Protein backbone atom coordinates (compact mmCIF):
# COMPACT_ATOMS: atom_id res chain seq x y z
CA UNK A 1 0.00 0.00 0.00
CA UNK A 2 1.39 3.38 -0.98
CA UNK A 3 2.03 5.89 1.73
CA UNK A 4 -0.19 8.97 1.31
CA UNK A 5 1.67 12.26 1.13
CA UNK A 6 0.83 14.28 4.19
CA UNK A 7 0.57 18.08 3.99
CA UNK A 8 2.01 20.37 6.64
CA UNK A 9 -0.40 22.03 8.99
CA UNK A 10 -0.08 25.30 7.08
CA UNK A 11 -0.77 23.55 3.79
CA UNK A 12 -3.71 21.76 5.29
CA UNK A 13 -5.18 25.05 6.38
CA UNK A 14 -4.60 26.63 3.00
CA UNK A 15 -6.41 23.73 1.37
CA UNK A 16 -9.35 24.49 3.59
CA UNK A 17 -9.34 28.11 2.48
CA UNK A 18 -7.87 29.84 5.48
CA UNK A 19 -5.97 33.08 4.92
CA UNK A 20 -2.47 33.77 6.21
CA UNK A 21 -4.00 36.08 8.79
CA UNK A 22 -6.31 33.28 10.00
CA UNK A 23 -3.32 30.99 10.22
CA UNK A 24 -1.31 33.45 12.32
CA UNK A 25 -4.24 34.08 14.64
CA UNK A 26 -4.65 30.39 15.00
CA UNK A 27 -0.94 29.95 15.79
CA UNK A 28 -1.21 32.62 18.49
CA UNK A 29 -4.15 30.84 20.06
CA UNK A 30 -2.31 27.51 19.98
CA UNK A 31 0.81 29.12 21.48
CA UNK A 32 -1.23 30.70 24.26
CA UNK A 33 -2.90 27.35 24.98
CA UNK A 34 0.44 25.73 25.82
CA UNK A 35 1.79 28.76 27.62
CA UNK A 36 4.25 29.95 24.98
CA UNK A 37 4.70 33.71 25.10
CA UNK A 38 4.76 36.07 22.16
CA UNK A 39 8.56 35.80 21.97
CA UNK A 40 8.17 32.09 21.17
CA UNK A 41 5.44 32.63 18.60
CA UNK A 42 7.81 32.47 15.62
CA UNK A 43 8.82 28.94 16.70
CA UNK A 44 5.19 27.89 16.76
CA UNK A 45 4.57 29.38 13.30
CA UNK A 46 7.70 27.73 11.96
CA UNK A 47 6.61 24.37 13.32
CA UNK A 48 3.13 24.72 11.83
CA UNK A 49 4.63 25.64 8.45
CA UNK A 50 7.15 22.84 8.26
CA UNK A 51 5.81 19.87 10.19
CA UNK A 52 3.52 17.41 8.54
CA UNK A 53 0.12 17.06 10.10
CA UNK A 54 0.57 14.09 12.44
CA UNK A 55 -1.95 11.31 12.21
CA UNK A 56 -3.78 10.65 15.43
CA UNK A 57 -5.29 7.44 16.67
CA UNK A 58 -7.75 7.69 19.53
CA UNK A 59 -8.49 4.38 21.23
CA UNK A 60 -11.40 3.74 23.58
CA UNK A 61 -11.33 0.93 26.13
CA UNK A 62 -12.95 0.70 29.57
CA UNK A 63 -14.29 4.23 29.81
CA UNK A 64 -17.44 6.34 29.74
CA UNK A 65 -16.40 8.66 26.88
CA UNK A 66 -16.47 11.66 29.21
CA UNK A 67 -12.94 12.51 28.04
CA UNK A 68 -14.15 12.74 24.44
CA UNK A 69 -17.17 14.72 25.54
CA UNK A 70 -14.90 17.11 27.41
CA UNK A 71 -12.48 17.37 24.48
CA UNK A 72 -15.14 18.39 21.97
CA UNK A 73 -16.17 21.19 24.34
CA UNK A 74 -12.73 22.68 24.22
CA UNK A 75 -12.83 26.44 23.74
CA UNK A 76 -9.24 27.54 23.04
CA UNK A 77 -8.45 26.74 20.24
CA UNK A 78 -11.91 25.76 19.24
CA UNK A 79 -12.54 22.10 18.73
CA UNK A 80 -13.17 22.30 15.01
CA UNK A 81 -9.66 23.66 14.60
CA UNK A 82 -8.09 20.95 16.69
CA UNK A 83 -9.92 17.96 15.30
CA UNK A 84 -10.22 18.93 11.69
CA UNK A 85 -7.31 21.21 11.01
CA UNK A 86 -4.14 20.40 12.79
CA UNK A 87 -4.83 16.87 13.84
CA UNK A 88 -5.47 14.21 11.33
CA UNK A 89 -7.80 12.16 13.46
CA UNK A 90 -7.67 8.87 11.63
CA UNK A 91 -9.46 6.72 14.14
CA UNK A 92 -11.80 7.52 16.99
CA UNK A 93 -14.81 5.32 17.64
CA UNK A 94 -16.88 8.24 18.86
CA UNK A 95 -16.11 10.82 16.22
CA UNK A 96 -15.31 8.90 13.05
CA UNK A 97 -17.80 8.42 10.21
CA UNK A 98 -16.52 4.98 9.25
CA UNK A 99 -17.78 1.89 11.01
CA UNK A 100 -17.17 -1.85 11.11
CA UNK A 101 -14.34 -3.23 8.96
CA UNK A 102 -13.71 0.17 7.36
CA UNK A 103 -13.07 1.71 10.75
CA UNK A 104 -10.70 -1.05 11.78
CA UNK A 105 -8.89 -0.67 8.46
CA UNK A 106 -8.39 3.06 9.16
CA UNK A 107 -6.77 2.19 12.47
CA UNK A 108 -4.33 -0.39 11.20
CA UNK A 109 -3.51 1.58 8.03
CA UNK A 110 -2.36 4.45 10.17
CA UNK A 111 -0.43 2.22 12.53
CA UNK A 112 1.28 0.36 9.69
CA UNK A 113 1.89 3.29 7.36
CA UNK A 114 3.24 5.83 9.82
CA UNK A 115 5.40 3.98 12.33
CA UNK A 116 7.08 6.43 14.68
CA UNK A 117 4.93 9.31 13.43
CA UNK A 118 1.44 8.97 14.80
CA UNK A 119 0.19 10.10 18.18
CA UNK A 120 -1.69 7.53 20.20
CA UNK A 121 -4.42 8.82 22.48
CA UNK A 122 -5.84 6.25 24.86
CA UNK A 123 -9.08 6.70 26.71
CA UNK A 124 -10.00 4.03 29.23
CA UNK A 125 -8.27 1.38 31.27
CA UNK A 126 -7.40 -2.15 30.23
CA UNK A 127 -8.97 -5.22 31.89
CA UNK A 128 -6.27 -7.65 32.92
CA UNK A 129 -8.51 -10.40 34.30
CA UNK A 130 -10.44 -13.02 32.34
CA UNK A 131 -7.88 -12.97 29.50
CA UNK A 132 -9.13 -9.51 28.57
CA UNK A 133 -12.67 -10.74 27.92
CA UNK A 134 -14.14 -7.69 29.66
CA UNK A 135 -13.25 -5.37 26.79
CA UNK A 136 -13.14 -6.67 23.22
CA UNK A 137 -13.20 -4.54 20.08
CA UNK A 138 -13.50 -6.07 16.62
CA UNK A 139 -12.82 -9.50 18.12
CA UNK A 140 -9.54 -8.46 19.74
CA UNK A 141 -8.75 -7.83 23.38
CA UNK A 142 -8.06 -4.28 24.53
CA UNK A 143 -4.57 -5.26 25.58
CA UNK A 144 -3.55 -6.71 22.21
CA UNK A 145 -4.90 -3.63 20.37
CA UNK A 146 -3.05 -1.32 22.75
CA UNK A 147 0.21 -3.23 22.50
CA UNK A 148 0.19 -3.25 18.73
CA UNK A 149 -0.87 0.38 18.41
CA UNK A 150 1.63 1.60 21.00
CA UNK A 151 4.60 -0.20 19.45
CA UNK A 152 5.05 2.36 16.66
CA UNK A 153 3.60 5.45 18.32
CA UNK A 154 5.56 8.71 18.38
CA UNK A 155 3.89 9.64 21.66
CA UNK A 156 1.31 8.01 23.90
CA UNK A 157 -1.11 10.15 25.83
CA UNK A 158 -3.31 8.64 28.54
CA UNK A 159 -6.57 10.57 28.47
CA UNK A 160 -8.32 10.83 31.80
CA UNK A 161 -8.05 8.95 35.06
CA UNK A 162 -9.01 5.59 33.48
CA UNK A 163 -6.00 5.35 31.24
CA UNK A 164 -3.79 7.18 33.77
CA UNK A 165 -4.75 5.52 37.05
CA UNK A 166 -7.53 3.00 36.47
CA UNK A 167 -10.36 5.21 37.77
CA UNK A 168 -13.70 3.96 39.12
CA UNK A 169 -13.73 0.63 37.32
CA UNK A 170 -10.54 -0.27 39.19
CA UNK A 171 -12.16 0.53 42.55
CA UNK A 172 -11.79 -2.11 45.19
CA UNK A 173 -12.24 -5.08 44.56
CA UNK A 174 -11.60 -4.30 40.88
CA UNK A 175 -13.50 -7.26 39.36
CA UNK A 176 -12.17 -6.80 35.82
CA UNK A 177 -8.60 -6.08 36.86
CA UNK A 178 -8.80 -2.62 35.26
CA UNK A 179 -5.25 -1.35 34.83
CA UNK A 180 -3.73 1.95 33.76
CA UNK A 181 -1.93 1.80 30.42
CA UNK A 182 1.52 2.83 31.70
CA UNK A 183 1.72 -0.49 33.57
CA UNK A 184 1.14 -2.48 30.39
CA UNK A 185 3.30 -0.87 27.72
CA UNK A 186 6.91 0.22 27.63
CA UNK A 187 6.35 3.58 25.94
CA UNK A 188 6.71 6.70 28.03
CA UNK A 189 3.14 7.76 28.79
CA UNK A 190 1.95 11.33 29.20
CA UNK A 191 -0.79 11.16 31.80
CA UNK A 192 -3.62 13.65 31.59
CA UNK A 193 -5.76 12.52 34.53
CA UNK A 194 -9.15 13.87 35.46
CA UNK A 195 -12.65 12.54 35.22
CA UNK A 196 -12.76 14.02 32.68
CA UNK A 197 -9.65 16.13 32.14
CA UNK A 198 -10.21 19.79 31.37
CA UNK A 199 -10.76 20.29 27.64
CA UNK A 200 -8.27 23.12 27.39
CA UNK A 201 -5.66 21.04 29.19
CA UNK A 202 -6.22 18.22 26.68
CA UNK A 203 -5.80 20.48 23.67
CA UNK A 204 -2.82 22.12 25.38
CA UNK A 205 -1.05 18.79 25.80
CA UNK A 206 -1.80 17.67 22.24
CA UNK A 207 -0.63 21.02 20.90
CA UNK A 208 2.61 20.71 22.82
CA UNK A 209 3.29 17.25 21.42
CA UNK A 210 2.48 18.47 17.90
CA UNK A 211 4.71 21.52 18.04
CA UNK A 212 7.66 20.10 19.90
CA UNK A 213 7.39 16.51 18.69
CA UNK A 214 7.68 15.16 22.22
CA UNK A 215 6.18 15.21 25.68
CA UNK A 216 6.04 18.32 27.84
CA UNK A 217 7.91 18.34 31.14
CA UNK A 218 6.34 15.75 33.44
CA UNK A 219 6.18 15.42 37.22
CA UNK A 220 7.07 12.25 39.13
CA UNK A 221 3.62 10.83 38.41
CA UNK A 222 3.94 11.37 34.67
CA UNK A 223 1.63 14.40 34.45
CA UNK A 224 2.53 17.57 32.51
CA UNK A 225 3.86 20.08 35.05
CA UNK A 226 2.36 22.87 33.03
CA UNK A 227 -1.13 21.88 34.18
CA UNK A 228 -0.64 19.59 37.16
CA UNK A 229 2.02 21.28 39.28
CA UNK A 230 -0.33 23.36 41.38
CA UNK A 231 -3.00 22.37 43.81
CA UNK A 232 -6.62 23.25 43.22
CA UNK A 233 -6.51 24.55 46.80
CA UNK A 234 -3.67 27.01 46.26
CA UNK A 235 -5.31 28.59 43.24
CA UNK A 236 -8.84 28.49 44.67
CA UNK A 237 -10.72 31.75 45.03
CA UNK A 238 -12.11 30.48 48.36
CA UNK A 239 -8.62 30.05 49.81
CA UNK A 240 -8.81 33.23 51.96
CA UNK A 241 -11.70 31.65 53.90
CA UNK A 242 -9.53 28.63 54.60
CA UNK A 243 -6.69 30.74 55.98
CA UNK A 244 -9.15 32.72 58.06
CA UNK A 245 -10.73 29.56 59.45
CA UNK A 246 -14.19 30.21 58.03
CA UNK A 247 -15.73 26.92 56.93
CA UNK A 248 -19.01 25.62 55.60
CA UNK A 249 -20.53 23.31 58.23
CA UNK A 250 -23.36 21.88 56.17
CA UNK A 251 -24.52 22.23 52.59
CA UNK A 252 -27.47 24.45 53.42
CA UNK A 253 -26.11 26.69 56.14
CA UNK A 254 -25.43 30.42 56.13
CA UNK A 255 -21.71 29.83 55.59
CA UNK A 256 -22.42 27.88 52.40
CA UNK A 257 -24.52 30.78 51.18
CA UNK A 258 -21.65 33.14 51.88
CA UNK A 259 -19.29 30.93 49.92
CA UNK A 260 -16.91 29.96 52.74
CA UNK A 261 -14.28 27.24 52.34
CA UNK A 262 -15.55 23.69 51.73
CA UNK A 263 -12.61 22.01 53.50
CA UNK A 264 -14.82 20.61 56.29
CA UNK A 265 -17.23 19.25 53.71
CA UNK A 266 -14.50 16.96 52.39
CA UNK A 267 -13.23 19.18 49.57
CA UNK A 268 -10.17 17.45 48.06
CA UNK A 269 -8.71 20.70 46.74
CA UNK A 270 -5.76 20.58 49.19
CA UNK A 271 -4.66 17.17 47.92
CA UNK A 272 -5.47 17.56 44.23
CA UNK A 273 -3.16 18.80 41.51
CA UNK A 274 -5.05 20.20 38.57
CA UNK A 275 -5.73 23.43 36.69
CA UNK A 276 -9.48 23.62 37.47
CA UNK A 277 -9.37 26.81 39.48
CA UNK A 278 -7.14 28.49 36.89
CA UNK A 279 -8.57 27.53 33.49
CA UNK A 280 -12.04 26.53 34.79
CA UNK A 281 -14.54 24.65 32.67
CA UNK A 282 -16.92 25.35 29.80
CA UNK A 283 -15.10 28.32 28.32
CA UNK A 284 -13.92 29.47 31.73
CA UNK A 285 -17.40 29.65 33.22
CA UNK A 286 -16.95 27.84 36.50
CA UNK A 287 -15.49 24.84 38.30
CA UNK A 288 -16.89 22.54 41.00
CA UNK A 289 -15.90 24.64 44.02
CA UNK A 290 -17.23 27.80 42.42
CA UNK A 291 -20.51 25.97 41.94
CA UNK A 292 -20.64 25.23 45.66
CA UNK A 293 -19.54 21.60 45.60
CA UNK A 294 -16.22 20.44 46.99
CA UNK A 295 -13.54 19.00 44.75
CA UNK A 296 -13.64 15.19 44.69
CA UNK A 297 -10.02 14.94 43.56
CA UNK A 298 -10.92 13.24 40.27
CA UNK A 299 -7.44 13.73 38.83
CA UNK A 300 -5.72 12.02 41.77
CA UNK A 301 -4.92 8.35 41.90
CA UNK A 302 -7.24 6.37 44.15
CA UNK A 303 -9.89 9.09 44.53
CA UNK A 304 -12.57 6.44 43.90
CA UNK A 305 -11.60 4.54 47.03
CA UNK A 306 -10.98 7.55 49.25
CA UNK A 307 -14.58 8.10 50.19
CA UNK A 308 -16.91 9.31 51.46
CA UNK A 309 -16.44 12.42 49.36
CA UNK A 310 -18.20 14.65 51.89
CA UNK A 311 -15.90 13.77 54.75
CA UNK A 312 -12.52 15.33 55.41
CA UNK A 313 -10.86 12.07 56.39
CA UNK A 314 -11.49 8.88 54.48
CA UNK A 315 -13.06 5.96 56.26
CA UNK A 316 -10.40 3.64 57.55
CA UNK A 317 -9.96 0.35 55.66
CA UNK A 318 -11.52 -2.58 57.45
CA UNK A 319 -13.42 -0.63 60.10
CA UNK A 320 -16.67 0.29 58.38
CA UNK A 321 -17.73 3.32 56.43
CA UNK A 322 -18.25 5.73 59.32
CA UNK A 323 -14.97 5.14 61.14
CA UNK A 324 -12.10 7.44 60.33
CA UNK A 325 -8.59 7.25 61.76
CA UNK A 326 -9.85 9.58 64.48
CA UNK A 327 -12.64 7.24 65.56
CA UNK A 328 -10.20 4.38 65.92
CA UNK A 329 -7.64 6.63 67.59
CA UNK A 330 -10.19 7.87 70.10
CA UNK A 331 -11.23 4.33 70.98
CA UNK A 332 -7.60 3.29 71.41
CA UNK A 333 -6.90 6.44 73.44
CA UNK A 334 -9.81 5.83 75.80
CA UNK A 335 -8.78 2.18 76.05
CA UNK A 336 -5.22 3.17 76.93
CA UNK A 337 -6.29 5.68 79.57
CA UNK A 338 -8.64 3.09 81.08
CA UNK A 339 -5.88 0.48 81.07
CA UNK A 340 -3.46 2.89 82.67
CA UNK A 341 -6.01 3.86 85.33
CA UNK A 342 -6.72 0.21 86.12
CA UNK A 343 -3.00 -0.42 86.34
CA UNK A 344 -2.59 2.47 88.78
CA UNK A 345 -5.31 1.02 91.01
CA UNK A 346 -3.82 -2.48 91.02
CA UNK A 347 -0.39 -1.01 91.65
CA UNK A 348 -1.60 0.52 94.89
CA UNK A 349 -3.11 -2.79 95.93
CA UNK A 350 -0.41 -5.23 94.88
CA UNK A 351 2.61 -3.09 95.68
CA UNK A 352 1.38 -1.87 99.03
CA UNK A 353 3.53 -4.31 100.97
CA UNK A 354 6.63 -3.60 98.95
CA UNK A 355 6.27 0.14 99.26
CA UNK A 356 5.60 -0.09 102.97
CA UNK A 357 8.84 -2.05 103.40
CA UNK A 358 10.76 0.51 101.41
CA UNK A 359 9.29 3.36 103.40
CA UNK A 360 10.05 1.66 106.69
CA UNK A 361 13.64 1.13 105.62
CA UNK A 362 13.87 4.76 104.65
CA UNK A 363 12.38 5.97 107.93
CA UNK A 364 14.76 3.73 109.84
CA UNK A 365 17.70 5.09 107.93
CA UNK A 366 16.65 8.67 108.61
CA UNK A 367 16.30 7.91 112.29
CA UNK A 368 19.71 6.40 112.45
CA UNK A 369 21.15 9.60 111.13
CA UNK A 370 19.26 11.81 113.58
CA UNK A 371 20.24 9.63 116.52
CA UNK A 372 23.86 10.06 115.75
Amino acid at each position, binding site marked *: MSKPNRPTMWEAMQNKGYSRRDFLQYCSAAAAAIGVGSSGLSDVIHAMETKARPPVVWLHFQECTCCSESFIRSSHPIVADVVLDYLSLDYSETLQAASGHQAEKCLWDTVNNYPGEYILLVEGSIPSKGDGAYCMIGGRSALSILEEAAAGAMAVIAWGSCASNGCVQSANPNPTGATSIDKLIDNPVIKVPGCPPIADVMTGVVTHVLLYGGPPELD*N*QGRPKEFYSR*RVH*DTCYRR*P*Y*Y*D*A*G*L*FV*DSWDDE*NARKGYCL*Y*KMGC*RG*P*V*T*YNACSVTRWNEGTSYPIQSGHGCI*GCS*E*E*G*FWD*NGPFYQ*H*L*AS*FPGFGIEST*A*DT*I*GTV*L*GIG*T*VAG*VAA*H*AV*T*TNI*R*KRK*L*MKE*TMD*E*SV*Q*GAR*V*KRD*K
Partner: protein
Amino acid sequence: MDHEQVGRYRRIYVWEWPVRMYHWINAIAVILLIGTGYMIGNPQNTFYAAEAYQMYFFGTIRFVHFVCAFIFFFNFLVRIYWGFVGNRFSRWTNFITFRKAQWKEMWDILRVDIAQADPRMHHKIGHNSLAALVYFLSFLMFAFQSITGFAMYAANTTAMLPRMFTFIKPIMGGDFGVRQWHHAGMWFFILFTIVHVYLVFYHDYVEGRGTTSSMIGGWKFERKDILE
Protein backbone atom coordinates in the same frame (compact mmCIF):
# COMPACT_ATOMS: atom_id res chain seq x y z
CA MET B 1 24.24 1.09 114.32
CA ASP B 2 22.66 0.26 111.02
CA HIS B 3 24.28 2.42 108.41
CA GLU B 4 23.40 0.16 105.56
CA GLN B 5 20.30 2.00 104.50
CA VAL B 6 21.88 5.41 104.71
CA GLY B 7 24.58 4.90 102.17
CA ARG B 8 22.74 2.26 100.24
CA TYR B 9 22.12 4.25 97.04
CA ARG B 10 24.57 5.91 94.73
CA ARG B 11 23.91 8.82 92.39
CA ILE B 12 24.69 8.16 88.73
CA TYR B 13 24.81 10.85 86.06
CA VAL B 14 22.75 9.24 83.29
CA TRP B 15 21.24 11.88 80.99
CA GLU B 16 23.65 14.54 79.75
CA TRP B 17 22.29 18.01 79.07
CA PRO B 18 21.87 17.55 75.27
CA VAL B 19 19.72 14.49 75.93
CA ARG B 20 17.59 16.41 78.42
CA MET B 21 17.29 19.40 76.11
CA TYR B 22 16.29 17.07 73.31
CA HIS B 23 13.70 15.42 75.48
CA TRP B 24 11.93 18.62 76.53
CA ILE B 25 12.15 20.37 73.17
CA ASN B 26 10.72 17.20 71.67
CA ALA B 27 7.98 17.00 74.31
CA ILE B 28 6.87 20.60 73.72
CA ALA B 29 7.08 20.27 69.95
CA VAL B 30 5.11 17.02 69.91
CA ILE B 31 2.37 18.42 72.15
CA LEU B 32 2.02 21.48 69.93
CA LEU B 33 2.14 19.33 66.81
CA ILE B 34 -0.61 17.06 68.12
CA GLY B 35 -2.76 20.03 69.14
CA THR B 36 -2.40 21.99 65.92
CA GLY B 37 -2.42 18.83 63.80
CA TYR B 38 -5.70 17.74 65.33
CA MET B 39 -7.18 21.16 64.60
CA ILE B 40 -5.98 21.02 61.00
CA GLY B 41 -7.52 17.57 60.58
CA ASN B 42 -10.76 18.53 62.34
CA PRO B 43 -11.33 22.18 61.47
CA GLN B 44 -13.92 24.08 63.48
CA ASN B 45 -15.35 27.53 63.02
CA THR B 46 -13.58 28.82 66.11
CA PHE B 47 -13.98 32.57 65.66
CA TYR B 48 -16.30 34.63 63.62
CA ALA B 49 -15.45 37.33 61.11
CA ALA B 50 -17.59 39.04 58.51
CA GLU B 51 -14.97 38.71 55.82
CA ALA B 52 -11.93 36.52 55.34
CA TYR B 53 -9.36 39.34 55.28
CA GLN B 54 -10.15 40.19 58.90
CA MET B 55 -8.76 36.96 60.22
CA TYR B 56 -5.85 34.56 59.77
CA PHE B 57 -6.70 32.00 62.44
CA PHE B 58 -6.34 28.78 60.47
CA GLY B 59 -3.24 30.12 58.76
CA THR B 60 -1.69 30.75 62.17
CA ILE B 61 -2.54 27.24 63.37
CA ARG B 62 -0.82 25.84 60.32
CA PHE B 63 2.15 28.17 60.80
CA VAL B 64 2.63 26.92 64.37
CA HIS B 65 2.41 23.35 63.10
CA PHE B 66 5.07 23.95 60.46
CA VAL B 67 7.44 25.77 62.81
CA CYS B 68 7.12 23.00 65.40
CA ALA B 69 7.66 20.43 62.67
CA PHE B 70 10.97 22.00 61.66
CA ILE B 71 12.07 22.21 65.31
CA PHE B 72 11.00 18.60 65.84
CA PHE B 73 12.93 17.45 62.77
CA PHE B 74 16.22 19.19 63.55
CA ASN B 75 15.97 18.26 67.21
CA PHE B 76 15.62 14.65 66.08
CA LEU B 77 18.78 15.01 63.98
CA VAL B 78 20.64 16.39 67.00
CA ARG B 79 19.57 13.36 69.02
CA ILE B 80 20.80 11.02 66.30
CA TYR B 81 24.14 12.84 66.34
CA TRP B 82 24.29 12.53 70.12
CA GLY B 83 23.72 8.82 69.76
CA PHE B 84 27.25 8.67 68.32
CA VAL B 85 29.09 11.02 70.67
CA GLY B 86 27.14 10.87 73.94
CA ASN B 87 27.75 8.74 77.02
CA ARG B 88 27.03 5.03 77.13
CA PHE B 89 23.40 5.56 78.15
CA SER B 90 22.60 7.62 75.08
CA ARG B 91 24.55 5.57 72.52
CA TRP B 92 22.71 4.40 69.42
CA THR B 93 23.64 0.81 70.28
CA ASN B 94 21.16 0.96 73.18
CA PHE B 95 18.30 1.12 70.73
CA ILE B 96 19.26 -1.96 68.73
CA THR B 97 17.78 -4.79 70.76
CA PHE B 98 18.65 -7.98 68.99
CA ARG B 99 20.64 -9.74 71.69
CA LYS B 100 19.07 -12.63 73.55
CA ALA B 101 19.79 -11.09 76.94
CA GLN B 102 17.82 -8.03 75.86
CA TRP B 103 14.83 -10.11 74.88
CA LYS B 104 14.99 -11.83 78.26
CA GLU B 105 15.08 -8.45 79.94
CA MET B 106 12.05 -7.33 77.97
CA TRP B 107 10.17 -10.35 79.24
CA ASP B 108 11.14 -9.51 82.82
CA ILE B 109 10.06 -5.92 82.36
CA LEU B 110 6.73 -6.97 80.94
CA ARG B 111 6.27 -9.08 84.06
CA VAL B 112 7.09 -6.12 86.26
CA ASP B 113 5.13 -3.49 84.35
CA ILE B 114 2.05 -5.41 83.34
CA ALA B 115 1.87 -8.49 85.55
CA GLN B 116 3.29 -6.37 88.40
CA ALA B 117 5.93 -8.76 89.60
CA ASP B 118 8.51 -7.64 92.15
CA PRO B 119 10.24 -4.61 90.57
CA ARG B 120 13.50 -5.29 92.40
CA MET B 121 14.37 -7.97 89.88
CA HIS B 122 15.45 -5.57 87.13
CA HIS B 123 18.12 -3.00 87.52
CA LYS B 124 18.98 -1.36 84.24
CA ILE B 125 20.25 2.16 84.83
CA GLY B 126 19.68 3.79 81.45
CA HIS B 127 16.96 2.70 79.04
CA ASN B 128 15.74 -0.78 79.76
CA SER B 129 15.61 -2.90 76.63
CA LEU B 130 11.83 -2.75 76.29
CA ALA B 131 11.92 1.04 76.48
CA ALA B 132 14.81 1.04 74.01
CA LEU B 133 12.81 -1.04 71.55
CA VAL B 134 9.78 1.22 71.90
CA TYR B 135 11.98 4.31 71.45
CA PHE B 136 13.50 2.74 68.37
CA LEU B 137 10.03 2.18 66.93
CA SER B 138 9.10 5.74 67.87
CA PHE B 139 12.19 6.99 66.01
CA LEU B 140 10.85 5.17 62.97
CA MET B 141 7.55 6.98 63.52
CA PHE B 142 9.45 10.28 63.82
CA ALA B 143 10.99 9.56 60.45
CA PHE B 144 7.64 8.55 58.99
CA GLN B 145 5.91 11.71 60.23
CA SER B 146 8.81 13.83 58.99
CA ILE B 147 8.78 12.28 55.52
CA THR B 148 5.02 12.43 55.07
CA GLY B 149 4.81 15.89 56.61
CA PHE B 150 7.54 17.34 54.42
CA ALA B 151 6.06 15.66 51.34
CA MET B 152 2.78 17.50 51.93
CA TYR B 153 4.54 20.73 52.84
CA ALA B 154 6.51 20.59 49.57
CA ALA B 155 3.46 21.91 47.71
CA ASN B 156 3.74 25.17 49.68
CA THR B 157 7.39 25.87 49.13
CA THR B 158 10.34 26.02 46.79
CA ALA B 159 12.78 25.09 49.58
CA MET B 160 14.92 22.07 48.90
CA LEU B 161 14.50 20.09 52.12
CA PRO B 162 10.74 19.40 51.95
CA ARG B 163 10.92 18.70 48.24
CA MET B 164 13.40 15.91 48.88
CA PHE B 165 10.53 13.86 50.29
CA THR B 166 8.00 14.10 47.49
CA PHE B 167 9.11 10.66 46.30
CA ILE B 168 6.71 9.22 48.88
CA LYS B 169 3.61 10.61 47.18
CA PRO B 170 3.26 8.14 44.28
CA ILE B 171 4.04 5.28 46.67
CA MET B 172 1.27 6.25 49.09
CA GLY B 173 -1.31 7.08 46.42
CA GLY B 174 -0.92 10.83 46.16
CA ASP B 175 -1.34 13.64 48.67
CA PHE B 176 -4.57 12.17 49.99
CA GLY B 177 -2.93 8.94 51.10
CA VAL B 178 0.01 10.83 52.56
CA ARG B 179 -2.32 13.07 54.54
CA GLN B 180 -4.39 10.11 55.72
CA TRP B 181 -1.37 8.23 57.07
CA HIS B 182 0.21 11.35 58.54
CA HIS B 183 -3.03 11.90 60.41
CA ALA B 184 -3.20 8.27 61.57
CA GLY B 185 0.43 8.59 62.69
CA MET B 186 -0.60 11.36 65.08
CA TRP B 187 -2.43 8.78 67.15
CA PHE B 188 0.80 6.89 67.76
CA PHE B 189 2.16 9.98 69.46
CA ILE B 190 -0.97 10.43 71.55
CA LEU B 191 -0.95 6.81 72.75
CA PHE B 192 2.81 6.90 73.28
CA THR B 193 2.50 10.02 75.44
CA ILE B 194 -0.18 8.48 77.66
CA VAL B 195 1.76 5.27 78.26
CA HIS B 196 5.14 7.00 78.54
CA VAL B 197 4.03 9.52 81.15
CA TYR B 198 2.20 6.87 83.13
CA LEU B 199 5.14 4.46 83.19
CA VAL B 200 7.48 7.20 84.38
CA PHE B 201 5.09 7.95 87.23
CA TYR B 202 4.67 4.26 87.95
CA HIS B 203 8.36 3.46 88.16
CA ASP B 204 9.13 6.52 90.20
CA TYR B 205 6.25 5.79 92.55
CA VAL B 206 7.10 2.14 93.10
CA GLU B 207 10.89 2.14 92.87
CA GLY B 208 11.82 5.61 94.05
CA ARG B 209 14.97 5.79 91.91
CA GLY B 210 14.39 9.32 90.67
CA THR B 211 13.08 8.32 87.24
CA THR B 212 11.12 11.55 86.79
CA SER B 213 13.74 13.98 88.03
CA SER B 214 16.47 12.26 86.02
CA MET B 215 15.15 13.97 82.92
CA ILE B 216 15.49 17.33 84.67
CA GLY B 217 18.79 17.03 86.52
CA GLY B 218 20.26 14.01 84.78
CA TRP B 219 20.79 11.89 87.95
CA LYS B 220 19.39 8.52 88.78
CA PHE B 221 19.84 6.45 91.91
CA GLU B 222 20.95 2.87 92.10
CA ARG B 223 21.62 0.44 94.93
CA LYS B 224 25.32 0.03 95.54
CA ASP B 225 25.11 -3.73 95.96
CA ILE B 226 23.75 -3.99 92.42
CA LEU B 227 26.38 -1.73 90.93
CA GLU B 228 29.22 -3.73 92.35
